[in-house]
């Protein structure tokens, strides 16, 4: 089911079918998008469910000014940013560093099945400022165009290019140290 069909079903009152269509079309994509920031399956699962509840609650206000895809990613990305802020706050209360907590989660993740370079790449991403993590992930992993990322993050293309360039340089430098 594509976005037009989902919106059409919703507008014609077939809400349950529209929601099923949303879940089928987006659950995996959104799961992997969140997963890169949540660093654990459990946190990702919680966030994903929150995201779908928010999407469903906000659907009546979707005016079609942007694509459904962009709108859904924007809700998801805002939830991810909120999650990152909560994690930072929890780290402050527990007198731990946000990065140390995320690094431990990556190291102890029973669902991680990548190699050493991939593990270090994901750790390096967690060392970036919150918004840079988002930009890097959307551009490097999901290969989105800057114009799409601009609509999701409500940031100018120029600022995104600068942000991505900084993030890329930092991570490249860290990854180079791991190579013989």
């Amino acid at each position: 089911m594509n976005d037009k069909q989902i919106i059409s079903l919703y507008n014609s009152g077939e809400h349950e079918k529209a929601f099923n269509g949303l879940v089928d079309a987006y659950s995996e994509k959104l799961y992997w998008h969140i997963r890169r920031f949540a660093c654990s399956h459990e946190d990702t699962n919680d966030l994903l469910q929150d995201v779908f509840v928010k999407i469903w609650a906000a659907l009546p206000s979707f005016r079609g000014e942007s694509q459904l895809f962009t709108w859904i990613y924007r809700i998801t990305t805002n939830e991810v940013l909120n999650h990152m802020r909560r994690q930072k706050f929890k780290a402050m209360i527990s007198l731990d560093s946000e990065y140390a907590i995320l690094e431990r989660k990556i190291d102890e993740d029973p669902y991680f099945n990548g190699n050493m370079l991939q593990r270090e790449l994901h750790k390096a991403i967690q060392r970036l400022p919150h918004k840079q993590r988002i930009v890097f992930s959307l551009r490097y992993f999901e290969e989105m165009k800057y114009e799409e990322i601009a609509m999701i993050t409500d940031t100018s293309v120029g600022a995104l290019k600068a942000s991505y360039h900084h993030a890329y340089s930092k991570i490249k430098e860290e990854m180079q140290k791991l190579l013989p």
Partner: protein
Amino acid sequence: MKNDVLNNMHDKLKKVPYNVPDGYFEELRSRLQHPEAKVAGHNSFLKAMAPYASMAAAFALIVTVGTHILKSTSPPEDMTFEDYLVHSDYMVSNGYENDINVINSEIEDEDIVDYLIYTGVTAELIELSK
């Protein structure tokens, strides 16, 4: 580009390095469709609020204990002025309570006589008081 591992190994590095539990996405659909999915979201909200609730509870405890300490060391509201003086250990204020030397200095008899004469007490009365 020679030393750019991110670019050179992009195809391998961009692959998702995670598994999910078996049947996760199929169960996710039914979980989200079920009314309990909203409860899961609520529980997630409670989990997120837990640190803030802990901080609020700690703050409330500090305020309660602090208030109790302040009240137990403060004079009661219905005490008389005399009781207050006793409680607060102050002497009657004559404008010199901060002048320790004045309060603690010994007053000589001559000073008393001079004062009495100044105030108009006759010499005969002063002699009688000695």
